């Protein structure tokens, strides 16, 4: 499968989706002008991956900030992950960032996926 490797910018996150090495990670800041357009290739990639996933998938979210339009797309990503067996989400938040911790908790209540919460 192709590897997605996007460098982060001041308004878009760093994204690595690498089936071969088992790395699935979205990190940094997400406030793109058009979040649907930005995340469309990610959702397509996950559609393809879900047809033949690794036995276990650890999907890492390590976001410093995301806007509300991105939060909708993050939920779309999580909904796709729901269909993958052996999935866990690792939700990182800065140790003094209660809002990011709460955001993770809310997402975990909206989808049926095991979440692990970690600080950095």
């Amino acid at each position, binding site marked *: 499968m192709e590897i997605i490797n996007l460098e982060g910018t*001041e*308004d878009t996150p760093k994204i690595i989706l690498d089936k071969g090495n088992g790395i699935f990670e979205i990190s940094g800041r997400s*406030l*793109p*002008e*058009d*979040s*649907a*357009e930005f995340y469309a290739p990610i959702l397509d990639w996950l559609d393809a991956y879900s047809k033949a996933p690794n036995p276990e998938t650890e999907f890492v979210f390590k976001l410093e*900030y995301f*806007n*509300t*339009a991105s*939060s*909708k797309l993050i*939920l779309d990503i999580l909904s796709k992950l729901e269909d993958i067996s052996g999935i866990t989400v690792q939700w990182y938040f*800065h140790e*003094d*960032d*209660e*809002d990011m911790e709460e955001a993770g908790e*809310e997402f975990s*209540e*909206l989808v049926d996926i095991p979440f692990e919460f970690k600080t950095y």
Partner: protein
Amino acid sequence: MKYIYDLHKTMLARNLILVYEGEFTQEITKSVLAMAERNMDSMGEESSIKRKVFNVMVECLQNIVKHGEDFNPFNEKKNSAVFMIGKQETEYIITSGNPVNEETVPKLREKLERINSLDKDGLKKLYKEIIKNADLSEKGGAGLGFVDMARKSGQPLQFDFEKMDDNHYFFSLKTTISREQA
């Protein structure tokens, strides 16, 4: 030239650390955010407060970018709006103003009044309800911006509609972020 001094005095009197008037785009949004961040960094602001202010600024600025453009009656100044950040002893005040069509006023008012009627748990419930059911609008908004601003603020969103002409109102919005740790 006296208006320069007057503007300067107004800004000082209101403790405005940043005022931007003009066209709003994603590029401008990024610049304004960078300036405000640098400003808060240099003043040694608490990172949790900084994040909340940043959050409210993003939603506010992107609202204007998304919804401001079609509404301005002054065509030569398309997309013109105002954005300000004030820093008081105990709080940051993030304000914006942009023209809106008359038809959108009741909808906006209803939305903001509903948000202001809710407490912390009510806002959380509303947020989850919208994110679960909403599709992105054609402008790319999730309909969550005001709810998120109210949640980060913890206080009602203050707003006002000033009549500009027969078809347009000037929509002012004010969000406060307390500088005292909750």
